[in-house]
């Protein structure tokens, strides 16, 4: 291999995210590859086995692309994701093959297969935020974008549950726009004295980052005269890459 080719390879990896623009692999092509293309992924502490087509994984996810393309252990042994819940991975796999997420109703999310394997029944909002974190962590831009829209699209959004906020602040970088969205809706919908005991206990566990953000937001609302009757501009959380896209979205 000459160094020219090497340089090209490196460019390809470095700017892999921009390569998403190329069309996704065709099912007809993928299924012809047979077992070679199948990757075994062990998910969760129980190491539930998933047999997934590598072509789709590699196409959508920077993480899986790197894991299987480099000379790593994974390219021989497959991959183990101990700290991923099967209920989240299920939704991801369904999305991966169908490009569809559960419907707009909470019901659609809470009836996903085996939500109880991890012990507690998931509420829709918690599941959604977990999927968002999953997409962010494993570099799946299309899924991350789709989840962003689902989370911010819920106009009847009530105040986010404290456990959702705790999870989000624990698993997203401080600058992630979804954190700001959670804080903003929290502050807008906050009703003094309307919290359950359980919720109040959870609120005590909010991280310092979270509290700081809430404090700043209340200050901002006071200054700008924002009241509970106001509403949020959802496009503020959409990470639009251009004004054109933003305008199109606002319609």
């Amino acid at each position, binding site marked *: 291999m000459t160094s020219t080719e090497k*340089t090209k390879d*490196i460019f390809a990896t470095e700017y892999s995210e921009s390569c998403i623009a190329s069309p996704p692999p065709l099912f007809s092509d993928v299924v012809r590859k047979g077992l070679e293309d199948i990757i075994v992924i062990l998910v969760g502490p129980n190491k539930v086995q998933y047999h997934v087509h590598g072509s789709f994984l590699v196409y959508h996810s920077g993480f899986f692309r*790197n894991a299987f393309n*480099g*000379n790593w252990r*994974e390219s021989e042994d497959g*991959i183990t994701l101990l700290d991923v819940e099967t209920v989240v991975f299920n939704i991801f796999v369904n999305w991966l093959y169908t490009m569809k997420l559960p419907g707009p109703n909470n019901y659609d999310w809470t009836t996903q297969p085996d939500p109880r394997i991890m012990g507690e029944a998931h509420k829709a909002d918690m599941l959604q935020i977990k999927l968002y974190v999953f997409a962010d962590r494993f*570099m799946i831009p299309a899924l991350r974008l789709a989840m962003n829209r689902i989370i911010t699209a819920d106009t009847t959004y009530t105040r986010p549950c404290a456990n959702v906020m705790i999870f989000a602040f624990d698993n997203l*970088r401080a600058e992630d726009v979804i954190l700001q969205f959670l804080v903003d809706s929290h502050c807008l919908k906050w009703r003094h004295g309307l919290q359950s005991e359980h919720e109040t206990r959870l609120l005590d566990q909010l991280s310092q980052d979270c509290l700081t953000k809430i404090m700043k937001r209340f200050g901002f609302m006071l200054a700008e005269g924002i009241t509970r009757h106001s509403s949020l501009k959802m496009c503020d959380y959409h990470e639009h890459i251009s004004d054109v896209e933003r305008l199109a979205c606002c319609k």
Partner: protein
Amino acid sequence: MPIHQGLHGDEVDFENIWGAIASAFREIHTKNASRLSYEELYRFAYRIVLKKKGEDLYLRVRQFEHEWLSNEVRGSIQALFSPNVLASPQSLGGTTTNERRVAGEKFMKGLKQAWGDHQVCMSMLADVLMYMDRVYCQDNRRPSIYTAAMMLFRDDILKTPTSDVEGRLVLDLLTHVILDQIQMERGGDVIDKHLIKSCVYMLEGLHEDDQESEELRLYTASFEVEYLETSRVFYRQEAELLLRESDAGGYCKHARRRIYEEEERCKSTLLEATSAKIQKVVEDELIKNRIHELVEMESGVRFMIDNERLEELNLIYDLNTRVDDKKTELTRAIQKRIVDMGTDANNAAIAASQAPATTADAGEKGKSPAQEKNINMQTVAAIRWVEDVLHLKDKFEKIWRDSFQSDNLLQTALTRSFADFINSPTFPRSSEYISLFIDENMKKGIKGKTEMEIDSVLEKAIVLLRYIQDKDLFERYYKKHLCRRLLMNKSISNEVEKQMISKMKIELGNNFTLKLEAMFKDMTISEELTSGFKHHVDGLGEKDPKRIELTINVLTSMTWPLETMGGTGDEEGKRPKCNFPTAIDKIKRGFEKYYNQKHSGRQLTWLANMGSADIKAVFPRVPSKDGSFKERRHDLNVSTYGMVILLLFNDLPAGQHLTFEEIQAQTNIPHSDLIRNLQSLAVAPKTRILIKEPMTKDVKPSDRFSFNEGFNGKFVKIKVGVVSSGNKVESDRERRETEKKNDDSRAFCIEAAIVRIMKQRKELPHQQLVLETLSQLATQFKPEVNMIKKRIESLIEREYLERIDGASLDSYRYLA
């Protein structure tokens, strides 16, 4: 919440995790990555970044790489600095080229290896640190870790000093080695282009600064500059050497090869982006700065032209075009050569036309024949000149087509140069010569040629005509020559004559050929008159067996240059009437009567000096030299004057004689014509029909003439030629006359042009009037400004124009 266990908590044990990452990185660098879990490393880095330790991680990785490069890689590179690498070709301290090449290759291989390893490892590291790159580097506008690591390679490897005394940087050493290798290749060695190209790509991939600005790639900023500079020096020296040791053709071939080589080198060894720049260097040094010397070399353009080195000329054309759109140097050299060769042809013609004058003076005894011969030689010289010029034209045409790719600019230059020497003020004869060339071909040259060949001859004449500036002078000569051809029936083909006229018409326009065509018309009418008259005489009744047949040419006096025919132009107007013998006079009067019936009011002037006659002569039985004793009959073709003279002897009793003066008194033939005719009849050995006493070559007034009864010709038909009857080069005196006449008619043309212009413009400043006059006459001739001035003066005198008083510029007004 159990699910969050292990993920939850702000505290990340950074040091522990970094320790794990760092040891994995070490494995990667030592090519032991296959047992590492990507998922695990990625998760470590992801967690660190999530917990706001992105910057720490970034700096640690950079530090790690810095140390790795400094401690592990640099050492292996340093190990490659053998003395042979550090040696420069100038300090040939015991190293051979081969040793230097091998050492250089080893050094480059090592560097290439280190660079390649670094790239591979860093791309793996970058994969692991992908989340950091996306989150931390993007949010904080840091270069990606991969890029940062490449910069480290630049700083920690390439920009560190080598161990040699001068303390050169590794980068400089690399440049030096590559340049050295390229120099070896220029010298004919085979080098590892692939290896060099790898190093070049490395330099191309790195930047001088941390902003990654395009123009500051190491290749451009560091290597290329050096490369161009050393190449410049090299080619400058090479040009000098080659100019000294090689001929121009070899130089051109070499230069072209070098240009090609450099182009190839950019493709195979360096970068194509350098191609244009190095081309410029080579072109500057090998061509632009040397083209003058090259063209002027002994084996330069002149030599190539003279020896028909078409390929070399093409090379030099190609080279000159590369550096100069106008091809100034080549054009200049070509033009000079044309003018030189043209001038040679001119001089040869002048020499040939002057040489006889001296021999004529030397050869006292036979002045007339010698002179005749001289004039013939001059004619030959004239035709020779035309052929020389045509040959020259063909030669350069061929060079232009084959070597100069039919370049437009050069065509213009060629045309200008031909016009230059053809119209050179030191050579006033071109018009006459070209006309003579046509004359010669009309009379002899085209005999037995196909239509195509004839056409090409005519075309050649037209080509030359194009160059002629003084078209009026040419017209004058052409008319004169044509006149002789027509009247003396010298033309081989009337058709071809007419073709020539129509070609001139296309080339020079209607006006030019108007009078020439009128001459042809006169000839046609004359034919009709002749046959008409013959018919008329036949109708008169009784047939006289002794009747004289008359062929007549009636010429319009303004159309024909009649004065040139007799060669005695100054006697025009007062030409004495020749006394014709009665028989002739009778038929002459008969025709005059016939003609007056057809065209009343026209006056016929008989030009006895231009006609000819066929006479049947009977020589009596007298013993002749060869001992035969019988009557001999000859058909004599003589000039009209000759006939008049001979007829005198018809009436003379045998044995009697006539003196020169008696002949002159009886015939009234002009003195010079008489001498010439008597020379043909009594001196020329083959046509000695009269006997002259005393028997000398010159004719003196006191000479006596008698009929040569013993004349014995070999043929029945005998043509008695008269001296100076063909179209020949003019003598200097004749030329002066012709030019004077030409100037007179020019004066008329100029006046006409001035009046035309002024009539239209009413008022004009002097300068503009002169310019417009020049441009109006450009197709005919180029008048001297002085002559124009004189014509203006004359027009003012005759009150066609007046000066405008008080005008700021000298101006004139037209007076209606």
